[in-house]
């Protein structure tokens, strides 16, 4: 049995200044197995992967590959031991071709010169082997995210890897593309490759993974066979306590219509969207990536001009030409892409919390610091944000806590209408559940919420009503009392 184990990591320790990221973690992988690595953000999954990939060096512990004790002290020794990692943020060079990216760092050729023809030919063979219709000469910047991911996979395979690590590979691709990814993974496992799979999505674990290892706060919690383990068991292993209620939602009769859109278009992605939002309700927007949901919200928030159609706020036509106008109508938008559109990563939690409401407590030309601290404190408490201090740089917080600060920032503008675009993307299970509870509180107090999400369970469990969008248009609307199924929504989303 012992010689059958492909990879064994024993008692791995790694610490950073002030944090013990890994404290004696064990992990093992069989050939042909898909082994999930599960844990909240900050549990140590990425650190463990980086130790395996030679990006971090463990202070203690041993790694065995096919029974051999190996020392991994750099990216190159990791590759030499047959390990390849597909990182969550794709790491391809945009201005280089597919072939150049695949062979980056080990280009074929002699004496420092590159043999371009061999490189393209070998890349093409690899792409064909896995039925990928991508040209080796295409520039990476011209590919879709899903295609880029396929290139990453081919690149990883081309190292003749025995161990493949995939870090949240499905976070930005569509369901159809996920299916193709899984097929490719099955082809690989049949050849005896062992895959370590990191994902927050429980559905996927059940579909593709054989076993799962759970980490929590840098420690090893346990390893289970996926098909013998319930979802609730896994979640309680991850958070270390029973999550009594994952989704919190108390439905009540909503009030008057606060926001109504009639056939709005932006001339590009939004081709005719109509919906209404009542006071005290949550409406969910479901659809595929590229259906125009985020773009619709950008129109409503004045970030992109609305070319035709009408927007009514509280029954009156609203002229929204800029985010400032939208804020005057008491609308707030927490954007989809925290890193690009929301955070000031090298600034403090306080700076990030109060940037939208600064003008309300400026005295003369100076910022009233006491008031600033007060407001920041209020929303840290309300959102239950875990941060050592208000001065902490927001870039150092976990995804979940960053998102809580972002939501708090917009709540500070005391909006009537809160638009949340993918509010739980990259957020761990515990923080997700807390965000749901906060949303429930907010609508109870009379706020109205629009939530865009690609996670159907979250849409179905949190919304009063669900609008489905496809190709820039609203294609349907369901009330929560209709017992909506995921299939019904997908039918309308993929016309």
């Amino acid at each position: 049995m012992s010689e059958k184990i492909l990879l064994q990591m024993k008692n791995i320790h790694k610490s950073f200044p002030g944090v013990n990221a890994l404290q004696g973690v064990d992990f093992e992988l069989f050939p042909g197995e898909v082994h999930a690595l599960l844990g909240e953000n900050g549990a140590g999954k990425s650190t463990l992967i980086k130790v395996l990939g030679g990006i971090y060096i463990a202070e203690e512990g041993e790694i065995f590959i096919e029974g051999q004790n190996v020392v991994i002290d750099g990216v190159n020794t990791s590759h030499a031991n047959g390990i390849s990692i597909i990182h969550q943020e794709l790491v391809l060079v945009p201005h280089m071709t597919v072939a150049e990216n695949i062979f980056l760092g080990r280009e074929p050729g002699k004496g420092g010169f590159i043999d371009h023809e061999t490189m393209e030919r070998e890349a093409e063979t690899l792409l064909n082997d896995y039925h990928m219709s991508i040209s080796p000469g295409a520039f990476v910047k011209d590919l879709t995210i899903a295609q880029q991911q396929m290139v990453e996979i081919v690149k990883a395979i081309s190292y003749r890897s025995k161990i493949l690590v995939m870090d949240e590979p499905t976070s930005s691709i569509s369901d159809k593309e996920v299916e193709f990814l899984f097929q490719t993974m099955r082809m690989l496992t049949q050849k005896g490759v062992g895959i370590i799979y990191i994902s927050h999505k429980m559905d996927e674990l059940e579909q593709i993974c054989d076993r799962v290892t759970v980490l929590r706060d840098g420690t090893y919690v346990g390893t289970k066979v996926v098909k013998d383990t319930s979802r609730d068991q896994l979640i309680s292993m991850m958070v270390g306590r029973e999550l009594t209620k994952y989704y919190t939602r108390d439905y009540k009769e909503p009030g008057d219509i606060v926001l109504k859109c009639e056939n709005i278009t932006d001339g590009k992605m939004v081709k005719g969207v109509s919906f209404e939002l009542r006071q005290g309700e949550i409406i969910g927007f479901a659809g595929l990536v590229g259906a125009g949901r985020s773009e619709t919200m950008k129109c409503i928030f004045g970030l992109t001009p609305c070319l035709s159609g009408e927007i009514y706020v509280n029954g009156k036509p609203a002229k929204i030409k800029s985010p400032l106008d939208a804020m005057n109508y008491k609308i707030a938008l927490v954007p989809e892409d925290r890193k690009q559109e929301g955070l000031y990563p090298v600034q403090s939690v306080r700076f990030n919390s109060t940037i939208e409401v600064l003008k309300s407590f400026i005295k003369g030309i100076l910022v009233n610091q006491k008031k600033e601290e007060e407001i920041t404190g209020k929303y840290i408490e309300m959102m239950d944000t875990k941060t050592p201090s208000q001065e902490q740089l927001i870039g150092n917080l976990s995804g979940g806590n960053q998102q809580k600060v972002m939501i708090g920032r917009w709540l500070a503008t005391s909006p009537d209408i809160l638009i949340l675009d993918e509010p739980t993307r990259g957020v761990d299970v515990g923080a997700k559940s807390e965000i749901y509870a906060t949303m429930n509180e907010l609508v109870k107090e009379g706020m109205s919420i629009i939530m865009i999400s690609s996670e159907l369970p979250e849409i179905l469990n949190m919304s009063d009503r669900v609008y489905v969008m496809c190709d820039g248009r609203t294609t349907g609307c369901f009330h929560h009392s209709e017992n909506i199924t995921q299939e019904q929504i997908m039918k309308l989303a993929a016309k």
Partner: protein
Amino acid sequence: MTTRIQKNVKQYLKDNIGIIGALLILCIFLSIFPKTSGVFLTHKNIFNVLRQISSNLFLACGMTMVIILGGIDLSVGSIIALSGCVAAGCVARYNLPIFAAILIGVLIGTAVGMANGVVISKTTIPPFIVTLATMNVAKGLAYVYTGGSPVRVVTKKWQFLGAGYIGGVPTPVIILVFVLIITAVIMNKTKLGRHIYAVGGNSQAARFSGISTARVKLLVHTYSGLMAGLAGVVLASRMYSGQPTAGDGAEMDAIAAVVVGGTSMAGGSGKIGGTIIGGLIIGVLNNGLNLLNVNSFWQYVVKGIVILLAVFVDYLRNKKKG
């Protein structure tokens, strides 16, 4: 093989159609405009333009690499002064053989470039700051060495490198052709070249692919220093003296040639072929303005506007492409 060359030529023309057009318009204008038509197309003038362009293109070769890497090298202008003064000093003050003096000048430039590279690759201090510092140090050393006045070289042979001819063609132009070929081969045909694009395009990707980003940065900055050292020696030869004021602002002309040539300041993309056209545009423009007797103060204004225009046209083209 021939089809491959045809394909490359076609691609080159397509990529640089805007600036090649601009260069042609400029040349045609200067050849038919009455005031300049008699002079512009003469042998003497063309060689003169090329000779003047050579120093800028030496710098621009290194600068193209540095900018594709996502950095900048502000020190090259000062390196011209330092290496030129020391090389001239070697001949005028210590009577060293000319060959040795040239070598020492080039090596001094290389050393300053290597110093930039060491700091930039070992720390996360931005290249802008590091090279700003070495720019001042190198300039200061040039003044210290010369005491502020030019080091004159009376040996006739000294002029060969900058003002001489080989088979009727100015020596600097011959050297330039070699340098351009070497740079183009490094950029397009070697692993180092690919790795420069990779580090500039996505340094994390490069690191995860096992590329030593520190080594690439060190080599590129050393190369930039070497090019600047060469430019300094050639210039000192052409002016019969090492001057501490030589190369003032030369780094800006080099950067202009690179960006007019279509290299992105964001790093990761660009071609040496574009830089050549960029350098030619700036050189021909300078020459044309002189031939037209435009006041030298106004020349700055015109040059600035042309740089902005060239980059703006590029911006419009990229915007169209989406």
